[in-house]
């Protein structure tokens, strides 16, 4: 039977990892990921988890050690944040290009400079090209559930790609919530023992992560591209299967709230989605036809979904908890790129919000729907808006 716990997001992840029985964990501490590895250390020390825990000397090595373990046939886990994610940047590409199904939790935190240990999505968004599947979760329960799903997705033989689960720093990592922790038996039933084609073999030795000449590299890239396309399907399926086993589903690539008849919608990732649903309820109560799209899988990007959405609504606002300097929010660009069809009529606006730990309040969210309404009514609004900026 599932047991209710009062857990922080970090702790919920640790519980999920325990349930997935990885063989090897390698991690390097960084705020706000730390509680994950501390809790796992406790599980290992107490014997609740039977796994090798490596105290590595950097994040680059954490990911390298996971890679080494994975290609020896071990299920692996690591967690990091921010500077740590960037420090392993080279390894992110290495692992995805080599198709090792590693699962990692990234406790979202902004990037220095200026130094700041608080949450935004600058770390993971900046790694969107690294070939990792990227999930963003909304609360501790989803963190736990998606971590379990992640192994199944990553290890699907048609996918064999690494998965990064993004968890808003502090707002989720350090907030305690009521969490259902599923029983081990159910997880064992849902998640088969680790298997991968990408491992060494003592019967028939292998050469892994080799070099490809210009004549062949394009074909390997295309393979990786296709695996990501296939992952879209697998993500949806795994979520459904998860629902059958555990009774909770999340919608796969995206989760819609009140979008069916909406005139204008906000697109959001991570913890702000829940807050935004409250605001949607409030505005709906006032008769506003607003909706919310929670973007769960940022890579693979649900392009097809947005193409469809663009034909249903009048205006789309995108919340980016980061900005690509010299342009606009990355999620915003990606959404616009998906909405783009000749003749598309949907209007768009970008909210740069929640940077580096700045809270996104319900008032902020309610105010975001205003320019959307204005747009829908044909008014002009400025395209990129910094929410909560002290001046303009």
């Amino acid at each position, binding site marked *: 039977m599932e047991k209710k716990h009062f857990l922080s997001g970090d702790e919920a992840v640790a519980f999920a990892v325990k349930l997935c029985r990885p063989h090897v964990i390698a991690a390097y501490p960084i705020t706000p990921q730390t509680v994950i590895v501390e809790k796992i250390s406790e599980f290992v020390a107490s014997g609740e988890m039977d796994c090798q825990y490596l105290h590595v000397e950097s994040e680059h090595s954490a990911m390298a050690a996971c890679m080494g373990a994975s290609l020896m046939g071990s299920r692996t886990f690591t967690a990091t944040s921010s500077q740590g994610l960037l420090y392993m940047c080279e390894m992110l590409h290495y692992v995805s290009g080599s198709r090792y199904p590693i699962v990692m939790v990234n406790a979202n935190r902004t990037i220095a400079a200026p130094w700041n240990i608080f949450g935004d999505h600058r770390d993971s968004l900046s790694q969107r090209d690294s070939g990792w599947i990227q999930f963003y979760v909304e609360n501790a329960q989803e963190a736990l559930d998606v971590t379990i799903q992640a192994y199944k997705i990553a290890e699907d033989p048609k996918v064999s790609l690494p998965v990064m689960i993004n968890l808003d720093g502090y707002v989720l990592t350090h907030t305690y919530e009521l969490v259902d922790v599923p029983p081990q038996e159910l997880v064992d039933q849902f998640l088969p023992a680790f298997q991968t084609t990408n491992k060494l073999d003592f019967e028939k030795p292998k050469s892994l992560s080799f070099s490809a000449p210009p004549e062949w590299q394009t074909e390997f890239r295309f393979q990786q591209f296709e695996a990501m396309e296939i992952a879209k399907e697998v993500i949806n399926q795994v979520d459904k299967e998860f629902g059958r086993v555990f009774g909770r589903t999340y919608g796969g690539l995206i989760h819609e709230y009140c979008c069916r008849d909406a005139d204008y919608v906000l697109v959001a990732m991570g913890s702000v989605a*829940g807050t935004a649903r409250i605001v949607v309820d409030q505005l709906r109560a006032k008769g506003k036809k607003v909706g919310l799209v929670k973007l769960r899988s940022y890579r693979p990007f649900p392009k097809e979904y947005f193409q469809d959405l663009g034909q249903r609504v009048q205006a789309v606002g995108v919340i980016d908890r980061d900005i690509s300097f010299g342009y606009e929010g990355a999620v915003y660009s990606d959404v616009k790129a998906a909405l783009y069809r000749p003749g598309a009529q949907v209007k768009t606006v970008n909210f740069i919000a929640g940077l580096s730990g700045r809270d996104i309040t319900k008032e902020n969210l309610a105010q975001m729907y205003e320019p959307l309404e204005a747009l829908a009514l044909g008014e002009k609004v400025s395209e990129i808006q910094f929410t909560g900026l002290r001046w303009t």
Partner: protein
Amino acid sequence: MIEIRWHGRGGHGGFTAARLLGLAASVYGGNYAQAFPSFGPERRGAHVLGFTRIDSQPINDHSQVYNCDYVIVLDETLMETFDVTKGIKEGGLLLINSSKLPQDFNIQKNIKVHTLNAGQIAEEVLGVPIVNTVMLGAIAALTGIVELDAVYQAIDEVMAPEIRDRNKKAVEVAYNSIKGVSL
């Protein structure tokens, strides 16, 4: 939804109280709860906040707490540099660990103010001036948001065996010292 703010000092267990309350109210109280500290790496001794949200419905709100039903001050010296009444809702409650009387604080807002000499209870029951569980017992008594029993269970789950009983005692003493007090 009930929103509660805790004022304490880094290392003095203020957030533990916030979390115990959330745990008691949710896992052992049948409600939903959230608990979180003031974010960031606060050093020992610095002023830190804790928050608890309790509701009968799942709590989706992940924005910060701006308005509170109850505010609990674990260390009255903090009031010198910080307006602890900030954001307390009309008719809300301010509970201060102090040997003084509520009126000594000269609070101008339309809120209820309550004091408790938690330090003394803590010294007596725990032998150390750590007042977090004392204040937890007090707020439980004052507001009824959790049953005493749920608090005990929470303490059993979270605290190290050797300090559980003492802390439950502290809760009980505080609880009883309040009960019967009309608000």
